[in-house]
């Protein structure tokens, strides 16, 4: 019954979505008559219906209703409840439903609260949002129905990929989806503004919270995904330049650029066309990302739910949305009026450099990710990895960070570099001191880590300088957010550079009782024991590890075997200390009584994810500041309007 209700609600939501599109388009074309009044309510009800559909699917999973095909394929009655619930979106159909739901809710929310934009632009925006949603509804209803019944019902579910039975991963895809969907709202705003050609500060202020929100989720999603890959894959790496990882990085790069250009548009009314273009690009990258992940067209260590036919469907949607938006851009962009001017040495100028460099990095990542596809057309199979991405990305990242140290200190419109000479002196000192200390105190660590650590030191100082001379209590939250995010970037870069510069690795075949030294750690191998969990058995290595003479702690990496479906995973064991992490993996029996152990000492590696969290936190502070400001202003406006009415105008 629940499944049928869910399906009915899904059809109804799709119908409402079609109505929202039709009414919106007619109203914008000026032929709608009273239809314009339908658009907002349709968006709101559609969002609530979509939420109901998702709730229905979650209930089915929580009860393990095995008469539903999707549940039978992806769940198991013996799974813990939290993973049953997370299983609802841990598969293709469910994740697409989650996408549609979040998109519907976002559209409804825009319809409900946003009153800043001119009504016609608003209607065009909601119509664009309905257009995008409609494609996904069609996708769900015609090729990925989550509610298909199974007759007769299955006796037991087929389980969920054990690699996915992990709390981090249960919430990692939704986080990225929130980001992607937020960018779809930004896309709709961009299309709406393109249709009516009303691109200005009002548009930017309406769009900014969505870009910020999407960007926060993407940042958190990438950070969490990187940490997941680090401890779950057991390879000791935190970023593999894998297509699936790049698929999440590319929208983030575009969103970061958009975030900065929308800020310029909101406060200075410059970069109008560029911002609209980035709005289109950012969502395109989300769609390309979804396509790469879902189609399995590229070899990936994360390839789980792969189906070429569905990939083709996403590719068609991608072509329609992006092609349509680009045609609209080509037709209307030239008639968008030029924004305000600025000199090259100004806040705007620095932000242009930021935008151009981020776009260049985006292009580098996109080319590298798609290159294997291109060569495959000529029957040559290649893979592209760190030797390409690291140096080529750095060629644009380094100048970007150098400008980032100066940019926030500059004034809007025009400024002179000499004015900020003194604070810049401090930054350069920090930067070169770090470089010199590294040269003197350690062995050569390689170009990229060396440059990375210098940049991190310079930026760590430079990020706080915008607070100089301000009354800290009266500094707007948005400024704190910027400081925090830029400092977070410095922290993350420091972590990345130290990890590759100072990591120590030991690979041994050890007998019980043997001692191994890894960096400051003394690790003793005690032996191997079999252990069992709810749906797995494992061989667990008993290690004790002592950090620089302190009392030893137990470290227990496992080699796990799941039985439903049969699969083996390696569970790394981590010990975190203030200055880094010990990372232990157990392998196979080398011969009779020796076991393979792989141990790493990774100094400051945790800074990578700490930096990611700080960046997201900066975004959150900024979002809170902006929203609070908007709300205050809306109240003030209303008060003024009321007073005017009182005066009898």
């Amino acid at each position, binding site marked *: 019954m629940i499944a049928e209700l869910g399906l009915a609600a899904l059809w109804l939501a799709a119908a409402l979505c079609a109505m929202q599109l039709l009414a919106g388009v007619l109203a914008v074309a000026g032929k709608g008559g009273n239809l314009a009044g339908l658009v907002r309510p349709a968006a709101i009800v559609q969002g609530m219906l979509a939420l109901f559909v998702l709730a229905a699917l979650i209930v089915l999973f929580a009860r393990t209703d095995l008469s539903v095909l999707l549940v039978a394929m992806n769940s198991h009655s013996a799974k813990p409840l939290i993973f049953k619930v997370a299983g609802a979106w841990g598969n293709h159909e469910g994740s697409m439903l989650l996408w549609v739901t979040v998109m519907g809710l976002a559209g409804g929310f825009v319809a409900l609260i946003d009153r800043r934009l001119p009504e016609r632009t608003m209607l065009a925006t909601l119509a664009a949002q309905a257009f995008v949603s409609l494609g996904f509804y069609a996708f769900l209803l015609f090729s990925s129905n989550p509610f298909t019944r199974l007759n007769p019902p299955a006796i037991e579910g087929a389980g969920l990929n054990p690699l996915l039975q992990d709390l981090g991963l249960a919430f990692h895809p939704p986080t990225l989806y929130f980001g992607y969907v937020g960018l779809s709202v930004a896309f709709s705003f961009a299309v709406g503004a393109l249709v009516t050609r009303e691109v200005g500060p009002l548009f930017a202020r309406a769009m900014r919270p969505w870009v910020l929100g999407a960007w926060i989720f993407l940042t958190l999603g990438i950070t969490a995904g990187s940490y997941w890959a680090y401890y779950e894959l057991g390879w000791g790496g935190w970023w593999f330049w894998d297509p699936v990882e790049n698929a999440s990085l590319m929208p983030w790069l575009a969103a970061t650029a958009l975030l900065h250009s929308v800020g310029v548009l909101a406060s200075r009314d410059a970069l109008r066309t560029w911002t609209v273009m980035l709005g289109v690009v950012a969502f395109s990258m989300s769609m390309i990302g979804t396509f790469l992940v879902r189609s399995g067209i590229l070899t990936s260590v994360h390839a789980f739910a792969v189906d070429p036919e569905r990939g083709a469907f996403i590719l068609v949607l991608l072509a329609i949305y992006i092609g349509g938006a680009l045609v609209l851009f080509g037709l209307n962009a030239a008639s968008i009026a030029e924004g305000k001017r600025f000199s090259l040495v100004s806040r705007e100028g620095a932000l242009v450099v930021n935008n151009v460099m981020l776009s260049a990095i985006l292009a580098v990542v996109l080319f590298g990710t798609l290159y294997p596809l291109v060569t495959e057309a000529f029957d040559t199979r290649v893979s592209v990895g760190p030797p390409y991405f690291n140096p080529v990305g750095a060629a644009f990242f380094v100048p970007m960070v150098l400008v980032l140290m100066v940019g926030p200190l500059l004034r809007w419109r025009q400024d002179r570099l000499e004015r900020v000479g003194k604070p810049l002196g401090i930054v350069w000192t920090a930067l070169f001191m770090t470089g010199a200390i590294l040269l003197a105190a350690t062995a050569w660590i390689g170009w990229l880590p060396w440059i990375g650590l210098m940049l991190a030191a310079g930026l760590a100082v430079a990020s706080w300088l915008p607070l100089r001379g301000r009354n800290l209590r009266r500094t707007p939250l948005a400024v704190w957010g910027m400081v925090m995010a830029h400092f977070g970037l410095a922290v993350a870069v420091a972590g990345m550079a130290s990890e590759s510069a100072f990591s120590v690795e030991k690979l*041994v075949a050890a007998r019980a009782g043997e001692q191994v030294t890894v960096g400051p750690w003394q690790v003793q191998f005690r032996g191997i024991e079999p252990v069992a969990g709810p749906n797995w058995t494992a061989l667990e290595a008993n290690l004790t590890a002592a950090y620089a003479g302190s009392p030893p702690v137990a470290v227990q990496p496992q080699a796990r075997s799941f039985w439903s479906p049969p699969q083996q995973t390696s569970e790394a064991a981590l010990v975190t200390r203030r200055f880094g992490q010990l990372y232990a993996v157990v392998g196979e029996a080398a011969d009779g009584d020796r076991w393979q152990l792989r141990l790493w000492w990774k100094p400051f590696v945790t800074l990578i994810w700490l930096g990611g969290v700080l960046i997201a936190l900066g975004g959150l502070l900024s979002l809170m500041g902006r929203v609070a400001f908007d709300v205050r202003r809306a109240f003030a406006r209303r008060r003024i309007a009321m007073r005017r009415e009182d005066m009898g105008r």
Partner: protein
Amino acid sequence: MNTIKAQRIKPKHQRLVLLVIAFVVLIAAGLLAAWALRSQASYFYVPSEILADAPEPDRAVRLGGMVENGSLRTEADGVTIAFVVGDGKARVPVRFTGIVPSLFVEGSGVVAEGKMGADGTFIADNLLAKHDENYVPRELQDMDAHQARQVVSETR
């Protein structure tokens, strides 16, 4: 000086200047990417190809094929393994130091990332085996289609 310049530039010109800067940087990014891709992309070989046309010694490449039955042995240090990868036409010895992926067994497919040594042994830094029962690296899927018959008759 910049002040004067900013005032002299006409609105249309500023937009043009920005566009030109963006284009120049993006084209530079494209060219740099293209050049680096040509020199840094790691090519995929099957054993017969790598023997016929060996890559330059320092070039990172990937070698894919079937692990020959009976060829896998562990060396004295307990963490280095040696095995032979075949595609039905040719055989290449491979050495790997590290922990092998869980589903790496004789008679199954493997993709080894590494470099071709001067003595004709492939030195692998990383091995990719099947992820789970259903997952096969794409390169191997493809190879199976081309050469399934020979590989199966040769390796079983």
